[in-house]
């Protein structure tokens, strides 16, 4: 059975006086990300809720802010989902980590960092989890520009020439042209006339 979100809201406001919460659908929005760990610890240690199981952390991009959604369950009471959300600006996407409270948050926070660039302060090993370390950009953000994998760029041409691989003329010429305009080979938009 599930826990009513108002019940959680009143409990948190009583437990942590300074907290500012807002009910969004079936979840609680913490206006100030800084009190996320204390809220999580309060819910975990409370004898009423005993939310000892952090099921999932999800990053999300809503164009003018980034959001992290946390789903908590209780394994002892076998009770339903309590959802907390935290919103941060795109410029300063910093959220305090939950790893000291929930060990299971480690990989999921790394995934949210890798995909959305949300930096979890205090995370013991905040590295990219899926992409390689030298990858730039956060791929699941709505404004991510994917590379066009059919046109060579100046870096590829130089790398190939160092290894004495001859490159067809028009590819090299296109790469230099791109380099002169200072543009990256972005994946092209559809050119067919009857695109759905």
């Amino acid at each position: 059975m599930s826990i009513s979100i108002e019940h959680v809201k009143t409990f948190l406001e009583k437990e942590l006086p300074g907290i500012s919460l807002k009910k969004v659908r079936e979840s609680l929005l913490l206006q100030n990300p800084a009190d996320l760990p204390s809220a999580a610890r309060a819910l975990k240690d409370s004898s009423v809720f005993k939310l000892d199981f952090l099921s999932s952390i999800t990053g999300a991009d809503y164009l003018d802010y980034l959001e992290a959604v946390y789903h908590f369950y209780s394994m002892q009471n076998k009770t339903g989902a309590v959802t907390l959300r935290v919103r941060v600006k795109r410029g300063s996407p910093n959220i305090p980590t939950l790893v000291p409270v929930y060990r299971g948050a480690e990989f999921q926070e790394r995934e949210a960092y890798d995909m959305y660039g949300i930096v979890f302060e205090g995370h013991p090993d905040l590295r990219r989890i899926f992409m390689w370390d030298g990858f730039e950009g956060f791929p699941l953000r709505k404004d991510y520009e994917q590379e066009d994998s059919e046109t060579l760029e100046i870096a590829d041409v130089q790398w190939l020439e160092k290894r004495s691989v001859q490159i067809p003329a028009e590819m090299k010429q296109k790469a230099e042209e791109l380099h002169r305009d200072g543009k990256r080979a972005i994946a092209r938009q559809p050119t067919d006339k009857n695109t759905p």
Partner: protein
Amino acid sequence: MEKTLQSGDFKEKSFVLRGERDVDTQTLEINVGPQHPSTHGAFRMNILLDGETVVRLKPVMGYLHRNHEQIAENMSYAATMPYTDRLDYFSSMSNNFGYAMCVEKLASIEVPERAEYIRVIMAELTRLVNHVSLIGFLLNDLGAFFTPVVYAFREREKILDIFEEVSGSRMMCNYLRFGGVKTDIGANTLEGIKKIVRAFPAFLEEFETLLTKNEILCMRCQNIGILRPELAVNASITGPMLRASGVNYDLRKVDKYSVYDRFSFKIPLGSRGDVYDRYFVRILEMHESVKILEQALKDIPQGDIINRKMAPFVKAPRNFKPAVGEAYARVEAPKGELGYYIVSDGTAQPWRYHVRAPSLINLTILEDMCLGQKLADAIVILGSVDIVLGEVDH
């Protein structure tokens, strides 16, 4: 932003691990993977070894990161269903089950009785396939090269014939639709399933005499990779690994989703939480799945196989535009709690689509279990965690 640790940061250190030793050994950093027979696919473990003992173990994922979430966010809801088969490619029906439940929760669609029973039958058949194959590969890591896998795959082939007869493809079933299932099960297919379910306990009994009391298996698996229940709960471990540590948490009993509350079955729990318990919990879970299958096959009702309101959307998926909202649904997949989180924005494509992959999160404590064990045991512990890279890297 504090400097993120690069992989090459660990310098050579000299270590004296336990007690006074006259010789001063150096640690050796090795990479097991991404191409290694024991890593069940493209998965790398950066292990720091002192002699044979594991001192530090950092898993590295991403070699099969196929951008499932980006593709799903650019596609209609029904078009993502075949992609969920490719998440955990051993249990495609329960991946479909989770995704279908999440969209039904989002758009509040009811599912007729018969479709629920068919879903439960298919989900339990995938649990059998997954556990049998997993035990086969676990024994591969223990050195019984491919003999248990050949036995397991013989049973798996029979169940895959049923999946092919019902849905059209052996592994990638794409069988569930929002509000029901794609096609009905014929009477003779039902007979075929009954025959397999009747013959399965005999196979399990033979599989157990082959393995359970085997002294090599007992010595190599008992008291290896012990996982304490508190750490398991704190690290969000779910599925057979959690139950092997003695925590009674199975979504079929907790959430009572679909029609699972109509079947009587028990939840096997381990006591010590070592590799042997994880192996034995999976064997007992197969017995329980056979019990559920027998009950489901006995009283499967007649009736529609898909919600009539949703039938037009099978023919025209592009018209399916659920209202703005979010939904998180979870299902007891063979590997653990498989969750789907979808935010819809009123258009035909979801705004945010996230998969909570059980095997990715079960890997969080791989290092804790392997510290202090021998390298050969670290391989066995990884085998008992039951990871499939399609789901780990989704």
